[in-house]
């Protein structure tokens, strides 16, 4: 795992988002085991308590579940995974729309620009625009 951390933002939120992204993109499959606090702390060079907090929050949100003595696992509920996906999309949209409004675009224009841009993407052969933001 590699994450470019931004020290200006709470680290646990950044790791949460990173793990959610892994789940949504299928790199961490439904029901798959999540590395231990210790492993992740060493790997990311992060305070173990911060990782602990990340996991607690993921559990609270139902994204991960811990099984006694076995460790932590990604939820196996597809619905939950779908809802994470929607949530992440909503965040992206919110940021995008906010940015566009700041640039002075109104709703109609934003929709128009997005539609045009998406159509442009379609015309490109080979779908060079696939992939996710990471």
């Amino acid at each position: 795992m590699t994450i470019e951390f931004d020290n200006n933002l709470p680290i646990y939120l950044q790791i949460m988002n990173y793990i959610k992204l892994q789940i949504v993109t299928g790199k961490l499959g439904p029901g798959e085991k999540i590395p231990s606090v210790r492993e992740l702390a060493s790997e990311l060079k992060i305070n173990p308590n911060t990782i602990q907090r990340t996991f607690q929050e993921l559990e609270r949100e139902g994204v991960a579940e811990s099984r006694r003595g076995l460790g932590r696992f990604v939820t196996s509920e597809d619905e939950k995974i779908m809802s994470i996906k929607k949530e992440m999309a909503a965040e992206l949209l919110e940021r995008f729309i906010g940015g566009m409004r700041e640039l002075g675009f109104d709703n109609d224009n934003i929709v128009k620009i997005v539609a045009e841009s998406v159509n442009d993407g379609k015309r490109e052969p080979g779908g060079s625009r696939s992939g996710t933001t990471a």
Partner: protein
Amino acid sequence: MTGSANREEAEVEQLLEFEAVSKKYGNKAALRDVSLSVGPGRIVGLLGSNGSGKTTLMRIAAGLDRPDSGTVRVLGHEPGRASKALISFMPDRPQFERWMTVGEALDFQRDFFADFDPDKSKRMLEFMKLSRGDKASSLSKGMQERLQLTLALSRRASLYLLDEPIGGVDPVARGHILDALVEFYEEDSSMIVSTHLIADIERIFDEVLMIKEGSLVLRQEVEQLRMDSGKSVDQLFKEVYAEC
């Protein structure tokens, strides 16, 4: 814990407590009225520029210097033999002799401290790419820092006091020392790490103490600090020190 089961569980025993601690060297105040406490299972950054009192604070906590006033407790003990057995202190200058080999320095440490863990020390040597046969006098600055840290972390102490472990080394060696800190930190102990280089290391801290001209000017959980201010510890540190 004995008997009284009804005692409130919120009362966590503090590893280190300072109450109104002051210290002067000659006319110069090194610490002014410092109060703080460090609980178990925490990595605490002790941040301050050179000469701000970090080393004095550590030396007093380690029982190597006495405060002029105020009280110090280590797991309830006054500084002394009992407290020294609980604390592993890594000074900012080499504590090994130049004629020693790495192995001899480790053996020396083992003979001095009952909590020395030969297995951990072996793993650390490997991690640090040090060999027992290396001469201390021929080690580079970065390797000396690694040996210092190996000596300190080879003990199974309750509290580790590390004075500038990434002080005078290049960024690569710094990264390696940082790795070792996370790798060999034990969650039932606590670590206080002093530094004036913050950006590289701030992600391993639970909490930071900022000290300026001997006074404690800020004490906060780092994640809370990021949440509240939208700033990194490094940035906040620069602001605190700019306002002279």
